[in-house]
């Protein structure tokens, strides 16, 4: 019984380590906002960005 419990504990511990590697501690310690995830990533924004269409009626300021 104790061995089974130990096996589950070990698996849980490995899983926990895995989560901490994927999601760094500081990210978990605060409310995760997806806004920050995308808007601080140069690579993500570059991928998502679509140039705006400029209307010909737009005049100089």
């Amino acid at each position, binding site marked *: 019984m104790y061995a089974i419990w130990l096996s589950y504990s070990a698996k849980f511990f490995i899983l926990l380590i895995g989560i901490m590697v994927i999601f760094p501690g500081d990210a978990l310690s605060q*409310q995760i906002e997806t*806004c*920050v995830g995308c*808007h*601080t990533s*140069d690579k993500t924004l570059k991928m998502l*960005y679509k140039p705006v269409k400029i209307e010909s009626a737009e*005049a*100089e*300021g």
Partner: protein
Amino acid sequence: MYRAFLVDKDIIKKDIHFSEGCTSCHKGNPKAWDRKIAHKGLISRPSKDLLTCESCHGDVVKKFRNSMHFTTAGLREGVKGRFSEQELKVFDSKVFEASCRSCHASCGDCHVSAPVIGGVKSGLIKGHRFVKRDEGKTCALCHGGRVYPEFTGEYGGTADIHYQKGMVCVDCHKKGELHGDGVAYKSMKEIKDRPKCINCHKIGEKDSEKAMEAHMIHKDRLSCYACHSSSPYRNCYNCHLGKGAESKPNFFLGINPRDKKTFTTLRLVPTVRNTFKSAGINMENFDKLPNYWDTAPHNIRKRTDRTRSCDVCHKERRDYLTSDKLIKDGSKANLNLIIKEKK
């Protein structure tokens, strides 16, 4: 450009503005990973509603609410004299809010993100830092049509000596002027504490004998710009609602339409007889106001053609506004601005 929306990760933990998360100002859905869902209900310019900033920066915002940067009252004041009473009502309901007022500045337009100009959004000033001042963007994006390129010499003339000496806009235009003093002025000419050349340059203080003589003779008859504006500045022609205006460099010396006596540099404003025709406004009183107005070109030099030789004005009458230079079908009031030749 995507970098317009890129936030500097390092400032998020350091700056108190981020302590309540992005959505406290921008709304949207902070848990969604899908772009459309995440941006649903997004407020891209939170400071458009001044209450967003007022809760912490109450003193400044209360004043700013009445400032001309926010009210754009100067645009209305400049043109309203051309309208009948009925036309002014149409202008206020159809044009002012939709067109002129859309150009007003909110807190974020100067301190966080540059506004959209001519359809182009250059975006966050410094990765969403709340900047106190950033010359290249804060002032130049809105005032980049006339003042700023004249100041830096990018418009093709001579750069302003103040710029070349390292001065920036806020060295003369102080915070109090930009944020307002709480009074709802109708025109920037009403503001008493606007920068004046004589605040720094006292007549006679560092003048040579020749300069002293010139200043004493001309001091109540000419504006400083009349002699010290160094080169042609941008004049705007032919503006039509929704279509914009054309511009070209020119230099006009004439009678100041406000005091009707001093000689100064005049700039052509783009309102023409049918500017507001598409809104059903014919400008019944169009001829009451001129098309040329006194202006302060930001291309100041100590020595210009006019300071070097008396003949440039007194014999050649160079750059004087004359009837053949006036725009076609312009206001009849333009004729009052022509400096008559002494016989």
